[in-house]
């Protein structure tokens, strides 16, 4: 990481930073627990991804994003776009933590007539900015939002969460060129590199590494961190916030099933099956991890 623009370290600020990290870790725990509860409703699905990306969402929603939980359409809000519609389970978990949707509603996940469909849609869910499901759309819409906000003199920022699989799509790179060309420093892309996609490990499906070099070559300010290290994520987001002149991207290496050893150790699967009795074990393991 290059120039970190954090204030000089004092005993007081160290304490403040520890509190901040602890607050985010607590939020990440609740996001994971929310996700497990939802996963249990379906019995299978994208729980591995949700656990993996929970720390990223905890930092974004409790520490970075400007929003009003009671007014999801507030014009001055920062936009957080979920380009990966199948990660809806993760975002619903975060939206509940953020107070944008009621936690009691999570049990309707993926059920008939629920506001929380398995694949994210803007027309269904408060706080869901775009309709996902078809991958490779988020960054293009983010480009337009960022151009429009800048044009309107609105200082709100635009975040787009994408996956390593989405780096396969031409549309992602078309938007990457556009963001750089237009100097959209109000755009922050976050790439969840869990090294997996539908047909198996990303390295075997379609090689995308070296990912950081590619974004830099496309004119982006790029950082890469362990996406399950809250302190590292906070430092990185703080740095990106100060960056001016070009769009920023944070590459986050995440572990599928992170926080739940039972699922972390399981063979990596895009669509994971979890046995009925395993959900409670998973919740217990999650809790043990928090107290450690």
């Amino acid at each position, binding site marked *: 990481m290059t120039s970190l623009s954090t204030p000089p370290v004092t005993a007081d600020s160290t304490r403040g930073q520890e509190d901040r990290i602890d607050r985010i870790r607590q939020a990440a725990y609740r996001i994971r627990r929310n996700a497990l509860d939802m996963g249990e409703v379906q019995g*299978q699905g994208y729980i591995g991804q949700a656990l993996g990306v929970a720390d990223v969402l905890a930092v974004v929603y409790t520490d970075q994003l400007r929003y009003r939980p009671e007014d999801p359409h507030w014009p001055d809000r920062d936009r957080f776009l979920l380009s990966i519609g199948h990660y809806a389970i993760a975002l619903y978990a975060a939206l509940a933590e953020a107070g944008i949707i009621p936690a009691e509603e999570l049990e309707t996940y993926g059920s008939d007539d629920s506001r929380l469909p398995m694949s994210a849609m803007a027309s269904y869910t408060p706080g869901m900015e775009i*309709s*996902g499901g*078809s991958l490779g759309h988020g960054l293009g819409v983010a480009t337009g939002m960022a151009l429009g906000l800048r044009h309107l003199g609105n200082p709100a920022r635009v975040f787009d969460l994408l996956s390593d699989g989405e780096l*396969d*799509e031409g549309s992602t790179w078309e938007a990457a060129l556009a963001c750089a060309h237009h100097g959209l420093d109000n755009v922050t892309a976050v790439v969840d590199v869990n090294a997996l996609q539908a*047909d198996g490990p990303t390295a075997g499906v379609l090689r995308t590494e070296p990912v950081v070099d590619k974004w830099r070559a496309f004119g982006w300010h790029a950082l890469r961190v362990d996406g399950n290290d809250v302190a590292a994520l906070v430092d990185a987001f703080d740095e990106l916030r100060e960056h001016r002149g070009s769009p920023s991207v944070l590459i986050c290496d995440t572990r599928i099933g992170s926080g739940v050893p039972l699922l972390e150790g399981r063979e990596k699967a895009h669509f994971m099956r979890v046995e009925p009795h395993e959900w409670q074990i998973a919740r217990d393991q999650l809790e043990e991890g928090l107290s450690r």
Partner: protein
Amino acid sequence: MTSTAPRKKLTTSAMIASFADPGQRTSSAPFGHALTRLAHERPEIVGLSADLAKYTDMHVFRDAFPDRFFQMGMAEQVMLGAAAGLAEVGLVPFASTYSVFATRRAYDFLCLDIAEPGLNVNVVGALPGLTTGYGPSHQATEDLAILRGCPNLTIVDPCDSVDIEQAVPALAAAPGPTYLRLLRGAVPTVLDEYDYRFELGKAAELRTGRDVVLISTGLMTMRALQAAARLEADHVDVAVLHVPTIKPLDTEAVLRAARTDRLVVTCENHTVVGGLGEAVASTLAFAGVGTRLVPIALPDEFLAAGALPTLHDRYGLSTDAVVARVKAELGGGAHAPWAADPTPATA
């Protein structure tokens, strides 16, 4: 249905949602196995997928012929472009993804790289019409409408595993480009009970009947056959004309079926705009046949997410819904053959 509804609502649970009825005979991954069998005889057959081999039954071919399978990553446009390139140098590609991505995302590549040169590329689209509860991003409700306008393209909408097994060699043998509406996973086996063989470009009368003719395609032929059997119990005599090839349409068979005083109903797993119903309607109109047509199809709207059985009921594709629609069209009243039956049968 309503009185016994479970307290807990049905869940979408899965891409893997099957539309097979409980207890129905099914065949596993018929496309993958048919392609693999064919590939043993024809070394020029190759396969491609866009990060969806596992979800389009292409994994069967991939595992049997790893050096003849090309993983293109989640990049549908370049997959179809590359399929064109493979065909240009003499190979016969089958390229699989979901129908929505083959048609919406990559249509320009299908049209200009594959169809215009008339290449033998076989595009295989999974989750056609309403065969997933994932909502509009995955429901290819208008794939036929998009593709019917594409010159040169042959379009096949199979009913079951029998259709798929027989269609695969026929598609490879056809010199030009094709699009197959893939049914994948545990696919119902239905047509082996009929005197039937898949013939590219040909419709087949699976049942004769004096009162009604159901002109159906894709998985709706399965529903049409079930509906016909149920209506028979109510003394309504229903014919079923199965139209697995949407383009070129077997206009002779369609005209023959429609030139009667029977109630003519089309059944398709597709929006009412631009699919089988409108293809049959234009065939009749262009031939000066003034028969009224009842279209059973999906509404012209973005459909909901949810459990597949719920959605098939809601949008009129379930057997119950087909039976109800036919009865309504025949006109009920005290004189209807089924008026004495107090409780309509349910599936």
